[in-house]
């Protein structure tokens, strides 16, 4: 038994701890930049500009969207290792409709926009459905089921084109990666915002969202409470797959090419964002705001370390340390 006051404190830390960590990281990078300015090395603090901050949002858009799906899966006490591969597969399917070399069609808008989007979203959701059915109906551990999909989707990506990339994508399609709304907001950032907003509503305001928490917290109790756990789990993986499709569209449109190696090991960054954001891999616990700041922390770190000119190996070391640190803090908080 913990005293009530203690537990209230705990909840507030859960809410704001990640934001404090994020601000601390920003302050640290910014301070180092400021020192360089004072030393006269740089004319201005390049980290703390509106453009650079917008850039960070732009850069986390793909990982952020994957991490949203991962958040649902992790809360349901699962894991989805296949998001990177499914991203590549969906991106490849989108590109196969969006490439100019496919030939000209009378309704180019439909052909270059609607078909690629539908193809990617459908592909992503379908991979998610397979993951979900294997996990919920055949009771295979999510790690194994999605490891299978990680390999299978990568293979399918290569099979679509015999291993070749698809490039020369139509400008209509590329708008999803390179366009700007009102000439300022990058489209991927808008997508990121929309995905987070809709997912937040889904997780916090709908019956489905409550059920995801319940199933992840205790599947047996959820079942005796009348929750159709099979269907909740299946839809959770479909959602994660669908968002991999969205991320696939954005990455492909951003780089202008669907590559067979796209998204390799992106699942790890997505899991890192979710874990740094305070979700527990044991399930039942996690928040989208946490995930958002988790993704931001990774983004700021990549951006900051590039700006500060830190070698890539140290980047990897720092990221690794951060993930473990986040989990240690989390487990102490729960102890």
């Amino acid at each position: 038994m913990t005293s009530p006051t203690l537990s209230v404190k705990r909840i507030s830390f859960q809410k704001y701890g990640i934001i404090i960590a994020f601000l601390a990281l920003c302050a640290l990078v910014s301070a180092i930049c400021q020192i360089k300015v004072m030393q006269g090395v740089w004319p201005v603090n390049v980290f703390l500009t509106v453009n650079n901050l917008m850039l960070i949002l732009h850069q986390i858009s793909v990982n952020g969207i994957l991490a949203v799906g991962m958040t649902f899966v992790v809360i349901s006490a699962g894991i989805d290792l296949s998001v990177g591969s499914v991203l590549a597969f969906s991106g490849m399917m989108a590109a196969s409709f969006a490439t100019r070399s496919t030939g000209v069609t009378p309704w180019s808008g439909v052909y270059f926009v609607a078909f690629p989007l539908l193809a990617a979203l459908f592909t992503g959701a379908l991979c998610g459905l397979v993951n979900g059915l294997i996990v919920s109906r055949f009771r295979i551990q999510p790690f194994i089921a999605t490891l299978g999909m990680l390999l299978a989707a990568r293979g399918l990506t290569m099979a679509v084109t015999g291993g070749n990339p698809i490039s020369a994508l139509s400008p209509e399609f590329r708008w999803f990666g390179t366009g700007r709304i009102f000439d300022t907001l990058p489209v991927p950032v808008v997508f990121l915002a929309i995905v987070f907003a809709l997912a937040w509503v889904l997780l916090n305001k709908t019956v489905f969202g409550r059920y995801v928490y319940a199933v992840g917290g205790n599947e047996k109790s959820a079942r005796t409470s009348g929750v159709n756990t099979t269907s909740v789990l299946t839809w959770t993986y479909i959602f994660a797959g669908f968002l991999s499709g969205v991320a696939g569209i954005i990455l492909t449109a951003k780089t202008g090419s669907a590559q067979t190696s796209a998204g390799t090991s992106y699942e790890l960054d997505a899991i890192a964002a979710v874990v740094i954001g305070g979700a527990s891999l044991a399930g039942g616990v996690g928040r989208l705001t946490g995930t958002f700041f988790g993704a931001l922390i990774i983004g700021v770190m990549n951006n900051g370390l590039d700006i500060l000119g830190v070698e890539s190996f140290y980047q990897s070391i720092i990221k690794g340390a951060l993930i473990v640190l986040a989990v240690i803090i989390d487990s102490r908080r729960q102890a």
Partner: protein
Amino acid sequence: MRLKLIGASLTLASSLMLSAAVAQADPVRVAFLMYGNKAEFVQLMERYAKEHPAVVSGDVILTMYDGRYDASVQNDQGQMAVNTMQDAIVINPMDYEANIDVVTMANDAGIPIVVTNARLNTTEMTSEVVSDDVQGGYLEAKAVMEKLGCKGNVVIIEGPKGGSGEIQRGEGNMKAIGECPEGQVTVLERKTANWSRAEALDLMQNWLSKHPGQINGVIGQNDEMALGAIEAIKSANLDVHDFAIAGVDGVTDALRAVKAGEMTSILQDARGQAQGSIDVALRAVKGADYQPESEIWAQYAGELSWDDGQAKRYDIPWTIVSNDNVDELLKDRK
């Protein structure tokens, strides 16, 4: 895309039937060990290997292996090639040191072994059919220096740290920069993007954010990363034509970018490497009577000589892709 697949399988099927029907005395069996199959360049090598006249006619039965980007997998596949009594082995190695085993195995079994595309740290192979990465790195940096008039700030996007590509192309990069008058060219940043377009895109964005208006040139140690830099420049609402950008390899997207005047690419000749190494391997199997069948020897007459197929090393020349030759090269990619 599907049509292409069907087409490919039809050619494959027909070549199989041909080889069965026309089979002369004894077709030569060649194992082609590729380090992986996910990049466009390796795909091209595979395609050109299969288009070698001797493969098409059925004189050669070619077995392709996918090393899955793992040196030990490739060593196992080398062993498998020896065990299945292939007549010759061509290897595009994953690792400069670890894959020397394949050369040793082949030599022990008395099978000719030709190394192509990448290098191995040994001289025991029958022959090497490669392109000199130092030269490639030199040519691309030279192109950037020429466009800048040897004046300005450049960034270098590197391959995976410690790999032979990064080391040798980097050496060539610095050689070209060093030919400029001292103090005129500054290397603002250099960092790896692991050959990846998406990583290079993020990296270049961050550099543009850090050095607003200061970067004049981008040296990508391969085309993919140069293309990532182009996307980053576009996403920052800057004009790509204000930058001098170059990459190495000559992948299709880079050829298109050259055509659009956005970059320079140094073509690494996948056909030269793939078909050249098959010719050298066949010479080793069939003996002095063998005459090379690939067109490449005629194409590079003057720059590259056959030398009776006995040279230890063949340097397949690089081609600087420009507006003059880009259309022709693009035509070949369809």
